[in-house]
């Protein structure tokens, strides 16, 4: 069979971690990830961004929002180096970094995720990171974070 088909089969067969199951409120976010775009809801009326996706703006009550592609840049708000995996599927990744990223677009716009390509002992508060996407299955791509390139 074609090499890329085999690659897809390998990916699906191997991925043992929990996959997000998109729902009606979050489908567009995950579609964005699938297309390697970080889409965040922006209130149509007052312009405030929000994440996790949800149907209402808690600031103005509007139920209209646009999905905006954001810069993919942020800073480290908080983090923890995981040394023992509660889920056995993560055992092979130890130690790994579980972090919360504050997106550059707005203060307190937070997103949990993983920082990769980084020495766990070298993470600092406020460190600049940028998003990229990992295609973990045919349907799902996950946003991941790495230290921002200094260009």
């Amino acid at each position, binding site marked *: 069979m074609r090499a890329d088909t085999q690659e897809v089969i390998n990916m699906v067969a191997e991925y043992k*971690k*929990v*996959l*997000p*199951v*998109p*729902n009606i409120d*979050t489908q567009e976010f995950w579609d964005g990830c699938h297309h390697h775009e970080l889409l965040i809801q922006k209130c149509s009326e007052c312009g405030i961004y*929000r*994440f*996790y996706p949800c149907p209402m703006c*808690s600031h103005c009550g509007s139920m209209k929002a646009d999905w905006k592609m954001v810069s993919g840049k942020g800073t480290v*708000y*908080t*983090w*923890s*180096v*995981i*040394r*023992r*995996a*509660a*889920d056995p599927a*993560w055992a092979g*990744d130890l130690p*790994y970094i*579980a972090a*919360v990223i504050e997106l550059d677009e707005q203060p*307190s716009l*937070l*997103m*949990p*995720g*993983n920082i990769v390509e980084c020495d766990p002992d070298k993470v600092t*508060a406020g460190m600049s990171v940028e998003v990229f996407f990992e295609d973990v299955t045919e349907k799902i791509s*996950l946003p991941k974070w790495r230290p921002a390139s200094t260009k």
Partner: protein
Amino acid sequence: MKWPMKDKTAIAGIGWTKYVKKSGVSVLALALEACKNAIEDAGLKPADVDGIISYAVNDSINVNSVSTHLGMQRLNFLADLSGGGNLSCASVADAAMAIATGNAKNVLVFRALNGASGIRWGDSNAKMLDMLSTTGACSDSFGQFLAPFGCDVWVTHFAWLAKRYMIKYGFNARQMASQLGAIAITSRNHAILNDRAMMRTPLTTDDYERSPMISEPLHSLDCCLRTDGACALLVTSDEQANDLKHRPVYVMGASQGGGPNTRDISWANYYNDHTRSYATYIAPLLFERAAISTKDVDVAEIYDCFTFSVLAQLEDWGFCKNGEGGQFVLEGHTALGNELPVNTHGGLLSEAYIHGLNSVVEAVSQLRGDAGPRQVKNAEIAFVSGGGAGTLGCGLILRR
């Protein structure tokens, strides 16, 4: 303005099962045993009891099953709350509210679970994620935005909160370990004096530092136990309490809830300041209702799902200044015999994890003067909290 419920209700009975790793019985059996003990402790019979309330995270038994098999004859008040430790004191306050408003006369409050051998809160698996998306104080953020990134477990959420605290006050890992270790050791020292406690072997700082690191900065000894067991309380009116077996322990003040953005109880993505827990919001009302200040508290049973919870709450309830919670413990103020004994039973860290209701039981024992070697001399007023260092919680002030 005087709180209408102040001192109008009292805890007249307490009961519990053994706290173990494998009960070998159903959650229903545990609930029944603890409730029966609380009713008998009050000097009442099941037919005298007309209300029942419990809280759970999809891991327990509904209250009407318990009331039926206890032999209760009448139900005038019932509630199955959904949530964890954030509802421990709240469920007692809700029982008190039913009594103070004349809706019920004698109300049972219980928490029962096979939390070690059965549904283990804090495990990471498909069933737990399913439960978390439907349980109070949680949401489907766990399955969608946390678990895919290996950060769906409570220890990591509290590690994130601890890290925000470290960033704000400039504490490094070594300083944090020193403070958190002192909390674990103080609790263990208290548990050693407690027949009910699951963990009674002494702990040194060396033991603490060598215990496995789970999610920096939290070691395994920073995390509470897992327990099979149940405990229960019998709440009644102040008048009725005078006729019963033990000296009454009055509900002097209560508050519950939090501030804005409480969708998730531990890691709350919408929360605006992660170094201000729920206690910051609900403390003023608690002390105002009780008409006391923190200085009047003789003993404090502070919800300790993690050591960091104690540190944050010492500050947020107003027992010490912001940034000084750890120092307060290091100086020994929270040990028995000192200024503000904390978790005299050993807490959730060393007694048992009955989601905080066991801490209310201990407060009652203290105020009755029944705490034996753990007794705080002349304990008149006790403080109890429910909920860690996150967005939702509750508090109780009890007095004799």
